């Protein structure tokens, strides 16, 4: 209807070129992450050959597993323009709960695992209800539940800790078991991340999360059930954090009330570094998972390079700022490209 006859000017081609360049930039995020990972691993291995030993790699894969799980849930929430700051506390509550069910109540392992995950779902449902029914901004609601859930763990634990000796062997074995050299926990995380990725890309309700983050008002006009979708996203984030808590208990064997303390910001950092826009509407789980892996590798590589703890934090900070600066540059270029295209078409 509009722009029916293409103007003889080179505007469309020019815009094509721009969009291609932009797509290149978005792809560049994934490429950049892979490149950063490769360089980091290469340099670290060169200076400290033991970095690529089987045990060290397994440690990284195990540590990344929990981050990837939580980052997948965080991605769903951030895509909707929300945030979930309670993931660390949910992980702690679920880890301590699972360990307690196993050691104190001597429940069967599958039942304890299920209960641990359900704890996460319930926490997610509380977050979702506060945000959708209560109308509390996600940042405030989940900041509140961050303290609330952590408080519950402290109350429950009362300063006690559950050690590996109290938990059944089969549960702890599961935490370290491998299949074809890959730790089970890593496989679980990868499978969950893929499931979330497929859901977001290939299902109607998954696309709705992008729509809600892209323009809440347009989503309302398009008849997207915002309450149900947001509720689903927060429950899913809680469930994945709950699963993360179960994996945490299985991997470390020792759980006290501080499990997962401060984890939420690491996860947000991983997701942002992975190219998920903090204001919603764009990004992928694949990117977020790569971001989580990169941050885990940094955390493991720097000590083995003999670099001070302080720098570890500073480098993560620089990465976050770099990632956001990159988003900003893309946005500015995008706006410039759109303006250019507009002036040409008119």
């Amino acid at each position: 209807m509009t722009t029916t006859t293409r103007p003889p000017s080179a505007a469309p081609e020019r815009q094509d070129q721009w969009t291609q360049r932009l797509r290149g930039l978005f792809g560049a995020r994934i490429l950049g992450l892979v490149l950063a990972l490769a360089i980091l691993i290469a340099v670290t291995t060169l200076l400290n050959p033991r970095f690529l030993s089987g045990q060290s790699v397994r440690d990284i894969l195990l540590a990344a597993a929990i981050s990837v799980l939580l980052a997948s849930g965080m991605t769903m929430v951030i895509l909707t323009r929300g945030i979930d700051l309670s993931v660390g506390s949910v992980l702690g509550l679920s880890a301590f709960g699972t360990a307690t069910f196993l050691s104190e109540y001597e429940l069967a392992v599958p039942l304890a695992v299920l209960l641990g995950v359900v704890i996460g779902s319930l926490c997610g449902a509380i977050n979702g209800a506060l945000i959708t029914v209560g109308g509390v901004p996600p940042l405030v609601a989940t900041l509140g539940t961050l303290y609330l859930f952590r408080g519950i763990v402290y109350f429950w634990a009362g300063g006690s800790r559950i050690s590996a000796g109290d938990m059944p062997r089969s549960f702890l074995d599961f935490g370290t078991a491998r299949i074809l050299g890959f730790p089970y926990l890593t496989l679980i995380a990868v499978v969950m991340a893929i499931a979330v990725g497929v859901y977001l890309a290939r299902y109607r309700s998954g696309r709705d999360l992008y729509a809600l983050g892209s323009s809440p008002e347009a989503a309302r006009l398009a008849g997207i059930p915002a309450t149900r979708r947001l509720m689903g996203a927060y429950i899913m984030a809680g469930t994945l954090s709950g699963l993360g808590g179960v994996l945490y208990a299985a991997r470390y064997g020792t759980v006290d009330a501080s499990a997962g303390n401060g984890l939420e910001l690491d996860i947000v950092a991983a997701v942002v570094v992975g190219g998920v826009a903090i204001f919603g509407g764009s990004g992928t789980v694949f990117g977020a998972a790569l971001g989580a892996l990169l941050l885990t590798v940094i955390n493991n590589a720097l000590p083995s390079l003999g670099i001070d703890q302080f720098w570890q934090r500073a480098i993560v900070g620089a990465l976050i700022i770099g990632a956001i600066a990159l988003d900003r540059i893309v946005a500015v270029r995008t706006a410039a490209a759109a303006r250019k295209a507009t002036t040409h078409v008119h």
Partner: protein
Amino acid sequence: MSEALAAPAPAESGRTPPILEVRGASKLFGPVRALNDVSISLDEGQVLGLLGDNGAGKSTLIKAITGVHRLDAGKIYIDGEPADIRSPNDARALGIEAVYQDLALFDNLGVVSNLYLGNELTKPRRLRALGWLDRKAMETEARRKLESLQVHLPSFNSSVGLMSGGQRQAVAVARAVAFATRVLILDEPTAALGVRETRNVLDTIAELPRRYNISIILISHNMDHVVEVCDKAVVMRQGGVVGQVVPTAETMEEMVSLIVGAKTHKKE
């Protein structure tokens, strides 16, 4: 409401009932009376101009028709049957689509996503919302629909936030036209457009009733456009209908004085 229900559905007996009729619509936002006993009717294939100053209640009225707002009082009839429109999905199921003033597009998403959001095709079809997104079918159909509207976009995959005003407008109109089977509502569709693009929109408005038998409600501040494409014009002021005019070059002055409140018609 009960009287409205008791009244015979078609206003004039012996004629086919209007495709869309709103009777006695009232809506309060807190103490503000956004709609006060508004009644309009739209016949099949008709283009109705909805006129009025800012805050006259035009947007509230169309959002009631599209299920975004719910009326406090009054009833909506589709083909003479009372329709219970509770959500945008209900309106969509009845074949009513709207293009809003701010276009209501998803800037981060591509053309196909924008066209289909809330309406996505899935496979297998009978699984509906539980099935996979049928991306190929959506892209093919989107191309076909845009082509039938003579819309050419430089790229299907780039996000619509990158596109020019005219292209964005085209996507928004294409989305509405693609799914409207009864009524298409256009809220100031030419507000952000250049001369040539405005021409295209007006041509489309003139053509849709003939080609697809779609009836149109057009909100516009431009009297020339109203005279050109509308079969009748309803003027709203302060939440109520103050007049109904057949728009011609001669009645243009009358419409303007109704809009600004310099003159009032006796209602009905």
